[in-house]
C-alpha cells in the first residue's frame, strides 16, 4: 500500500536556525499518526510544510503522491490550524456554507453535505449560532466539520483539543475515529501523550528531530524496568530517600503518589518487602505504564546518560 502522506529525510531551517532535521514518516489511508512533542519541537512547522505553506530545504514531501505545493492537491486535503481558522462572527451554517462554496459544490450537494455534517457532529440545532459564541468543544466540532466539507483524503490537525473539556475531547475523538474508518489518512499534532496513545503510530519530536517512532504499544513495551506506584500519607516527603533506595531507577512524584521505576530484574515482591522494612505505611502497587509514563522514563534516562558523558 502506498502511503498517502510521505516525508523522506526532510530538513527545514528558518535562516540559520534548524527547525526540522532528517524527518521521515508516512501515513497510510485509515491511519491516525501522532506527531507529539513540546511547543517549539517543530510540529506546526512540519504540518505547514505538508500543506504547502512552507518549502523544505532538503528532502522529499509527497501528499497523495504530489508535491504539497501542487494546487491540484488542495481539494483533497484538510487542515485544521491552531485556533481553528473559523470566522467567529459568522454562524455555524455560514461557516460551513463558505467552505462548501470554496470547494465548488453546487447548492444542492452542499446543502445535503452540510446537513449530514451537522448531524454527525451533533451541531444541528445550532445552525444559526455564531461560531464565536460556541463552547470550545462545539467550536472544535465545527472546525472539524468545516474541514470535512471537502471530503478530504488526508487531514492535518494541529493541536485540535486545546482548551476543550474532556467530555468534548472524547466526543471529538469518536468523530475522528469515524473519519479514520472512512479511510482518511490523518496526521495529528499534539503535546499530550494520552492523545498520542489513541493513535495508530506515534512520531515523537524533540527540538526538530524524531526521537522515537513506533506504535504506542511498542513504545511502551520497549521501556526498561517495571513501574510501581507508592502511596501513603506524606509519601512525597520520601521522594529523595527513595531515589537512593536499592533497585530504584527513577522516582517521579505525581500528586499524592510516587511513580517509581524499578530497575529491570528487580522483583516487585522483593521491593515491597525491602520498602516495608525501611518505611512504614507505604503501599506499593504495580502500574501499567502509559505512553506518558514510558516517555518520561525514556527522556529521564537519556538525560541522565547525557549528563554522565
Amino acid at each position, binding site marked *: 500500500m502506498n502511503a498517502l502522506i510521505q516525508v523522506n529525510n526532510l530538513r527545514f531551517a528558518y535562516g540559520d536556525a534548524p527547525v526540522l532535521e532528517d524527518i521521515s514518516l508516512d501515513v497510510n489511508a485509515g491511519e491516525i499518526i501522532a506527531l507529539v512533542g513540546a511547543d517549539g519541537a517543530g510540529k506546526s512547522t512540519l504540518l505547514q510544510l505538508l500543506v504547502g505553506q512552507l518549502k523544505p530545504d532538503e528532502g522529499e514531501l509527497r501528499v497523495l503522491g504530489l508535491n504539497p505545493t501542487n*494546487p491540484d492537491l488542495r481539494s483533497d486535503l484538510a487542515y485544521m490550524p491552531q485556533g481553528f*481558522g473559523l*470566522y467567529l*462572527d459568522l*454562524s455555524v451554517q*455560514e461557516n460551513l456554507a463558505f467552505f462548501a462554496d*470554496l*470547494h465548488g459544490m453546487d447548492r444542492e450537494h452542499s446543502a445535503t453535505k452540510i446537513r449530514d455534517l451537522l448531524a454527525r457532529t451533533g451541531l444541528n440545532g445550532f445552525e444559526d449560532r455564531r461560531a464565536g459564541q460556541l463552547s470550545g468543544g462545539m467550536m472544535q466540532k465545527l472546525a472539524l466539520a468545516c474541514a470535512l466539507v471537502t471530503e478530504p483524503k488526508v487531514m492535518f490537525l494541529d493541536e485540535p483539543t486545546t482548551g476543550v473539556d474532556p467530555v468534548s475531547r472524547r466526543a471529538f475523538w469518536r468523530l475522528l475515529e469515524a473519519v479514520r474508518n472512512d479511510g482518511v489518512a490523518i496526521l495529528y499534532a499534539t503535546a499530550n501523550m494520552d492523545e498520542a496513545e489513541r493513535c495508530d503510530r506515534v512520531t515523537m519530536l524533540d527540538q526538530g528531530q524524531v526521537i522515537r517512532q513506533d506504535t504506542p504499544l511498542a513504545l511502551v513495551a520497549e521501556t526498561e524496568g517495571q513501574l510501581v506506584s507508592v502511596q501513603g500519607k506524606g509519601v512525597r516527603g520520601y521522594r529523595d530517600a527513595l531515589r537512593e533506595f536499592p533497585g530504584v531507577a527513577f522516582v517521579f512524584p505525581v500528586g499524592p503518589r510516587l511513580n517509581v521505576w524499578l530497575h529491570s530484574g528487580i522483583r516487585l515482591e522483593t521491593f515491597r518487602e525491602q520498602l516495608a522494612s525501611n518505611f512504614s505505611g507505604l503501599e506499593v502497587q504495580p502500574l501499567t505504564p502509559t505512553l506518558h509514563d514510558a516517555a518520561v522514563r525514556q527522556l529521564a534516562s537519556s538525560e541522565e546518560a547525557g549528563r554522565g558523558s
Partner: protein
Amino acid sequence: MKLQHVRAIARKEWWHLLRDSRSLMLILLMPSMLLFLFAYALSLDITNLPMGVLQESHTARSNAIVARFDGSNAFEVVAEYTNRQQLQADIQSGKVAAALVLPRNLDQDLANQRGQIQLILDGVDANSARLAENYAQAIINDYLRTEGLVNLPIEIEDRVWYNEARESRMAIVPGVIAVVMAVIGALMTSLTFAREMEQSNLVMLRTTALTKNEFLLGKLIPYFVIGMGDFLVATLAAVYLFDVPLRGSPIALTLVSALFLIVVMLQGALLSLIAGTQMLAAQMSLVSTFLPAFLLSGFVFAIENMPQVLQYLTLIVPARYYVALSKLIFLKGVSPLVIWVEVVSLCAILLVLLRVVTLKARKLGLL
C-alpha cells in the same frame, strides 16, 4: 479564475458586514451624515462679523448705510479707515473679515441711478464670505428700498482675496461625495483584509483551492457595491435636498465615481496588507484618505492657493482628480472626454496601486 470562488468570498464578506453593526452604521449613516455636516454646518449663520469701513466722503447716505451695517446682527463695524493700504493690511491680518468701501460720489451716483459699493471679503473661509456677501446685499437693498430707490441697480464688487476661485455653495457637495467615497472605500476595505490576517483564517484559506486574485476580487466586490450605493445616496441627496444641479451626464458621473472608488479601495487594501492589524489599518486609512480628500483635493482649499510643495503633493491624491471631475460634471456639465487628463491620471494611479497590491500580497504569501 473561478467565479464560484469569487462568489464564495463575496458572499462571506456580505455576511460579515451584516453581522457587524458598527460597519453597518458607518456605511448607512456616513454619507448622509457627512453631507449634512458639511452642507449645513458650513452654512451656519454669521453674527457680528468684524467689519471695516472706508468712507471716501462722509455723506448722509453713506453714514446711513454704515449705520445699517453696524445695526445688523451679521456685521459689527469695528474700524473706520481713511486709506486703502490700512484696510488691506487689516484684512490680511484677519483683524476684519469684511470691508465696505463707499465711493466719494455715492450720493451723486445714487441720484443718477447708478452707483458702486465695494465689499471686500476675506475669502479664506469661503463659506462665511458667501454668507457675508448675501447679507451685505440684503442690507443695501433694504436701505435703497426704504429710501425709495428700489429700482436703482447697485453693484457690490466683492473682491475675495486668497480664494479667488471660490465657488458657490454648490461646490461643496461634489467634494463631500469624494470624501464619503474615500472614507467608505478605503476604511472598509482596509478593515476587511486586516481582520482576515489578524484571525487565523488566512492559514486555513491557503490550503483551499482559492487563488489570490479570486480572494482579492471577492473581497472587494461587496465594498464596491456599497461604495456605489453610498455614491448614489449622496448624489440623490445633493440633487434633491441641496438643489445642486447635475448639469452633466449622470452616466459619466457614475463611471468616474466607480473609477475613483476602485482606486481608494485598492489604497485601503494596500494599507491593510501593510498594517496587518485592524486598528493600525483603520488609522492609516483615515489619515491617508480622509485628510487628503478633505484638505488636499481642492474641496475646501483651492489647490492653486496652496504652497508649491503641497500643490505637488496633491498630484498623488486621487481625490484631487475626482473632485475636479465631479465638480465639472455637476456644475458645468463638461464631458469627461474633454477633461481626460484627470481620467487618465486616475487610471494611472489605479494601475500602479493594483501592481503594488498584488506584489505585496505575493510577498506576504497571501494565498
